[in-house]
């Protein structure tokens, strides 16, 4: 059971190495690896011959933590997984815990608040993804535009739960605090504000010729490869597969809302290229906005958390597996409870972990600049890759 512990590709002896090949260490500290992610690239000039990904620099034993702190405290740690979509993480973990109870009803108002928060968070997360993607390609200004709009969402979240990034807001049984009319008004304001602003991203990036040439036909991810690697979320939909858990396996109250699922069309290049993945995110923001508008319009009065879950959380013995469609793909939690107030085992199925694992397959033969474009288009968050 002693597996070999060599983790770096052996450098070829310098005597018989072809002179133009070079091993290039991209990361763990590099502006475009979106966190501490390391790729060892074998290059021939600017061409990437081969690459090997190394993850784990941000490993902090999330799953082990969950085995030593209570269920409610574990929600806090889920914030730090995909720290750009904390609402979705909270939601997934809370639903996994809730499913351990045989007959638990979540109040309607709480479900609506959850959906509003999750979708607003998806917009915020996609805004960051688009902005940083522009920056990877070399356009710095769209990043600031995206941050300007993302700030508005973060301010709404701050007024809802007092936090701007790690919300710890959605909890088993409901949400932590109720929202009031001023917050609903702010959300409505944002919906009116954001729709025309979304055009700016198209003007600056989507229709920019240089941007199109840098992303179209680059990093093409064929559908079968994506399926084999378990890629989900916008990266999968960019390859043309219309799969979204919000529609295919509706959780919470997503089956009540009307929205489209944008998929890649290969409009500027090949189906499944970086441009398609980028475009899916741009279009998804508008769809999320539709959901928010509908949910805000029909939010009912009532309690914001379940009365059944008073006191210390002590789910009955059992196992549950729940997935939600997070902004980067399907986030799943496998929770095993043995009847105590501490989980026996929590396993996190992180979308970025799957999405980044195929990097070396789709980056062969591209240029170093494309490597950056591909990593950016997969939109990973190392927090959930390394957990």
């Amino acid at each position, binding site marked *: 059971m002693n597996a070999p512990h060599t983790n770096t590709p052996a450098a070829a002896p310098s005597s018989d190495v072809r002179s133009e090949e*070079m091993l*290039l*260490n991209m990361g763990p500290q*590099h*502006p*475009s690896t979106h966190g501490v992610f390391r790729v060892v690239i074998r290059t021939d000039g*600017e061409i990437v011959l081969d690459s090997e990904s190394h993850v784990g620099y941000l490993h902090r034993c999330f799953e082990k933590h969950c085995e030593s702190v209570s269920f409610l405290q574990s929600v806090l740690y889920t914030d730090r997984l995909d720290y750009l979509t904390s609402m979705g993480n909270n939601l997934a973990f809370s639903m996994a815990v809730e499913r351990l109870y045989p007959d638990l009803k979540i109040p309607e108002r709480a479900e609506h608040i959850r959906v509003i928060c999750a979708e607003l968070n998806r917009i915020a997360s996609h805004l960051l993804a688009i902005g940083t993607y*522009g*920056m*990877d*390609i*070399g*356009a*710095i*200004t769209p990043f*600031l*535009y995206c941050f*300007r709009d993302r700030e508005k969402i973060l301010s709404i979240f701050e007024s809802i739960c007092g936090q701007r990034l790690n919300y710890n807001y959605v909890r088993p049984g409901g949400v932590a605090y109720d929202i009031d009319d001023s917050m609903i008004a702010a959300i409505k304001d944002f919906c009116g504000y954001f729709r025309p602003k979304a055009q700016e991203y*198209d003007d*600056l*990036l989507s*229709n*920019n010729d*240089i*941007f199109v*040439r*840098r992303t179209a036909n680059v990093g093409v991810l064929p559908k079968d490869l994506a399926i084999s690697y378990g890629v989900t979320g916008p990266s999968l939909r960019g390859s043309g597969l219309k799969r979204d858990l919000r529609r295919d396996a509706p959780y919470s109250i997503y089956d009540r809302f009307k929205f489209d699922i944008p998929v890649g069309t290969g409009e500027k290049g090949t189906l499944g290229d970086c441009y398609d993945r980028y475009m899916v995110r741009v279009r998804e923001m508008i769809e999320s906005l539709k959901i928010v508008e509908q949910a805000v319009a029909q939010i009912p009065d009532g309690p914001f958390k379940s009365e059944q879950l008073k006191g210390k959380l002590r789910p009955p013995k059992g196992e549950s597996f729940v997935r939600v469609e997070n902004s980067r793909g399907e986030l799943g939690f496998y929770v095993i409870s043995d009847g105590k107030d501490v989980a026996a085992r929590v396993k996190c199925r992180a979308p970025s972990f799957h999405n980044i694992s195929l990097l070396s397959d789709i980056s062969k033969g591209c*240029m*170093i*600049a*494309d490597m*950056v474009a591909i990593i950016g288009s997969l939109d990973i968050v190392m927090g959930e890759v390394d957990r």
Partner: protein
Amino acid sequence: MTTPYTLVDWVLGDGAGWLARFIGAILVWAVPITGFVSFVGLLSIWLERKISAHIQCRLGPMEVGPHGALQTVADGVKLLAKEDIIPADADRILFAFAPMLAFAGTIVGFAVVPFGPGLIVADLDIGLFYLAAVGSLEAIGVIAAGWASNNKWSLFGSVRAATQVVSYEIPMGLAFVTIAALAGTLSMVGIVEQQQGWIANWFLFRNPFTWVAFIIYYIAALAECKRAPFDLPEAESELVSGFHTEYSGMRFAIFFLAEYAQMYVVSAVAAVLFLGGWYTGIAPLDAAIGGGTAGMVVGAGVIVTKSFLLVCVQMWLRWTLPRIRLDQMMYLCLKVLMPFGMLTLVGSTVWEHFLPSPAIVKDGGGWTGNTVMTGVVVAAIGTVALVAYVRSVIRATPSLRAASNS
């Protein structure tokens, strides 16, 4: 019109009193030019910050001085005080030498850039050729920096810089030759003086091909300055910071200053070659100002303003456009700019053969058949391009497409 003198004359002079001339040249030109370069650097960096900030819905520096005008000075002081870090495995001599080489390569360009009528260090008879020759010196400094850092990312940056600068010298040279063929001289002052009079005398409006030459020159100049979308040698999202990744403190500041000084040089050259140099383009106004000190001051103001406007366009482009890829950069140079540059050279000479410009009419003039024809052709091409652009935008935007179909 002053006669440009040869470099030999300028270097050797009349043989007597050379030491006095040498010291005099230092006092009269070297010190003010260095000061001017520093001023251009400070002003451009401040402009870049403010322009980028306003493009990005920000304010930019606001605290140090009015509207942050002294921020760059403060940063300069900070950079001076910073530790001078040389990586352990770097080639220390080259590492120290590289920024100086880059800066020197830039600053020698100022020798033939006029700052106004009579305000030129050396009006060489091969001024334009001199510019083309020294333009590549900065690249040597950049290459040395990338190599000496002993860092693979820096090396990539310097190799990219070498590729880019050497390649874009060719279309730039073609644009130079187009103008030189029209002007019949390589002297910068001589070229400016041919554009005296009304705005129609500017080389930009001389014939339709000079428009193309201007565009080619400006794109090539962006590449020579390594400005976005040609900032591949620095490319902070790909190469960390490219050739100056390992540089810090004052050595970095010198690279920085060299970049901004070069931006000014290429813009000033564009103003000289295409935009009438120190002439306002309004013949009576130029005549009213006349020569002498007033002409010198106004002329200096005009040419510096034109140059800074072009510098601002560079900044505008940088904060709007993404970066192109290495192969696209080479494609643009070899398959777009070079054929168009050759076409421009041939077309411009053929046009002048059939529709020769009149001799320079100092007090106006220039509104000839050539001008009219140039205007017609440029307007026609512009209209076609505009229509094509609007159509492509409509095609690319689903909502507009639907509206135009219904």
